[in-house]
C-alpha cells in the first residue's frame, strides 16, 4: 500500500511543540519528531511512552551482583580455600568484606554495559547503520514533524494542508512511500 508522508519543518523547538499541541488537539497523529537535541515536553504530546531501559539497567546490575557473588564464593571458598596467617576462608560471610569492592565494580560494569548495549540495539543505532533523518539539517538547527496519511484516516490531505497553513511552518515536504 502506498503512503504519503508529510515532513513539516520548523526552526525552533518551542514553535514545533506548540504546533504539535494544536495538531494533536485537532485529532492529527504525529508519528515522529526529528530534532538536533531533546525537546523537553514533546513526548507526552506526540504519545511517546517513557523508556523502560532503567528497569533493564537494574536487572543487568542484579545479574552482575549475582555473578560476582557466586563466582567469588566458588573461587575463594569452595574450589581453592586459602589459609592466610591462620585466618582461613571458612565461609562466604566471614570473608565477605574483602569481596565488597569487586562485587560493586562488577555490578556497575554489568549494569552500564548491559544498558548501553540494549540502548543501541533498541534504537537500531549500530556502527555503519544508515542515517534516517529526512533532512540533514535536523541534526543542526531544524526540527521536523513526520505525519503519515495512513495513520490519519479522520483527516484528508487537503484538511491537513489547511491546518498546517493556519498553524504555520517553515518548510513542508511531501513524500510518497511505496
Amino acid at each position, binding site marked *: 500500500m502506498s503512503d504519503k508522508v508529510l515532513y513539516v519543518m520548523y*526552526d525552533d523547538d*518551542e514553535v514545533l511543540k506548540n504546533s504539535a499541541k494544536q495538531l494533536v488537539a485537532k485529532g492529527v497523529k504525529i508519528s*515522529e*519528531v*526529528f*530534532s*538536533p*537535541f*531533546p*525537546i*523537553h515536553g514533546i*513526548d507526552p504530546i*506526540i504519545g*511517546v511512552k*517513557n*523508556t523502560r*531501559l532503567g528497569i533493564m*539497567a537494574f536487572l543487568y*546490575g542484579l545479574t552482575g551482583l549475582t555473578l560476582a557473588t557466586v*563466582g*567469588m564464593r566458588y*573461587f*575463594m571458598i569452595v*574450589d*581453592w580455600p*586459602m589459609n*592466610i596467617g591462620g585466618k582461613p576462608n571458612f565461609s562466604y560471610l566471614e*570473608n565477605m568484606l574483602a*569481596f565488597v*569492592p*569487586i562485587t*560493586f*565494580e*562488577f555490578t*556497575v*560494569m554489568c*549494569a*552500564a*554495559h548491559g*544498558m*548501553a548495549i540494549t*540502548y*543501541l540495539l*533498541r*534504537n537500531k*543505532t*549500530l*556502527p*555503519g*547503520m*544508515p*542515517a*534516517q*533523518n529526512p533532512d*540533514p*539539517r*535536523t*541534526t*543542526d*538547527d531544524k526540527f521536523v514533524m513526520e505525519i503519515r496519511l495512513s495513520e490519519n484516516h479522520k483527516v484528508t490531505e487537503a484538511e491537513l494542508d489547511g491546518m498546517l497553513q493556519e498553524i504555520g511552518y517553515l518548510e513542508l515536504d511531501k513524500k510518497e512511500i511505496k
Partner: protein
Amino acid sequence: MQKEAAIREPLILGHKTYHDVTEDVCRPIEDKAPKMWYILFGIALVIGLYGVGSILYLLGTGIGVWGLNKTIGWAWDITNFVWWVGIGHAGTLISAVLLLFRQKWRMAINRSAEAMTIFAVFMAGTFPLIHMGRLWVGYWVMPIPNQFGSLWVNFNSPLLWDVFAISTYLSVSLVFWYIGLIPDFATIRDRAKKPLARKMYGILSFGWSGRAKHWNRFELVSLVLAGLATPLVFSVHSIVSFDFATSVIPGWHTTIFPPYFVAGAVFSGFAMVQTLLLIMRKAMGLEAYIHTKHVEYMNIVIMVTGSIVGTAYITELFISWYSGVEYESYAFINRATGPYWWAYWSMMTCNVISPQLMWIRSLRRSLLFTFFISIVVNIGMWFERYVIIVTSIHRDYIPAAWSMHFPSHIDIAVYIGTIGLFFVFFLLFARYFPVLALNEVKTILKGSGQSYKESPDYHKHH
C-alpha cells in the same frame, strides 16, 4: 525551557543561534588543521615513541632497568600510575556528578574532560601492566580456568580489586563518552562534504537520526549512567588507596586514605582540565562557550578539594604523633626532615598553599594565573604520590636495609613518554572529534545564552 536568575552570568556569551553552535564546534574539524597542530602533534609523537621504545626495552630486559632496589620496590612506576588515575578523575566527575547536580556549566567542558579522563586512564593502566615485567601473561589477573590446578587470583587482595576498578572505570567512562558523542557525530556526518569524512562519521554516528523516542532513551541512559558512574568515580580512587592503606607499612596504613585520595584525584584532574581547556578554547575559538565563569567554577572545585587535601596532610601529621607509635611518627618526621624533605615541601607548597590563593576573586578569574596554578597543582600531586610511596618504604625497619631511590633514564623516559602519548591522543581528539557536546549546549542556549537572557522577553512569561 528552564529559565535561571538574571544575576547569574550567562553560560554562552554573544548572540549565538543553534546554527552558530554547530558552526563553531564543527569548523575546526572541517577546516585544515593549523600549522601549530602539526608542530605540537609532531613533538608529542616523538616523545610518545621514545616512551614506547623505552617500554619495549624494559620488557625485553626486565624491570631491573628501573631504579628500583630491594627496599624500594615501588617508585616512579606506581607514582605515575596513581598520578594518571588521579588526573583521570575529573572527566567522569564533571559529566556524571555534575549531571546529577544539574550543573549546566558542565556541558561546555564535559566532552573534552571525559576524553582527557579516558586517555589518562590508558596511560595509568600502562604502568601496572609493564610493572608485571612479563606483559604477555598479563591476562593472568583475570579469574580464568587454567592449567595450574585451577589456581585462582586472590580476591582478598587490593591489587586485584584495582584490576576490576580500573577496567570498570575505563570501560564505563568510554561508553558514557561515546553515547554522548553519537548525536554529535551525526551532526558532523550531515554536514560533511568530502565522501571520506561522510563515510567515517557515518560509521561513527551509528545511523543516529534524532527521533523523539531515541532522545527519550538517550536522556534516561545518560542519567542512569551518571548515577552508576558517580559511585564509580569515588570507588576507583578509594580502591587505589587501598593498595597502600591495607598494607602494614607505616605511612601507608592509614584509614584516612580513601577520601584523601579521592579529593586529591579530583584536585589534580580539574587542574589538568584547566591546563588543556585554557589552551584549547583559544586555539579553537571557543571563548564564547568556555569563558571566565567556567574557569572560575573549576577553580572553586580546585580550591575546595585542595583544602580537603591540605587538611588531610595536617591530620596525617597530627595522628602520626598522637598515635604514639614510634614507627608511624618516624615515617612522618622522616618525610618532612629526612633526605626527601625537598619532595615533601614541594608537595606542601604546591598542594596546600597554592589552592588557597583561589579565595581571591580576581585571581581565580585570571586565566593566566589559573594556567600557572594548574601546572603547579599537577607537579604537586605528582610529588604527593612520590612522597607517599618512596619516603614510606625507603627507610625499612632494619637500618641496614635503608636505601634511596634514584630514577634511571628508563624511569624518566617511560614517564615523559606517557605524557607524549597522552598528548598524541588528545590532539587527535581535538582534531577529529566534536570537542564540545554541541547538541547538549543547544539545550541551554535559550535558558543561559547571553542574547536570550538580555532580551526583554526573558523574564516576562514563565
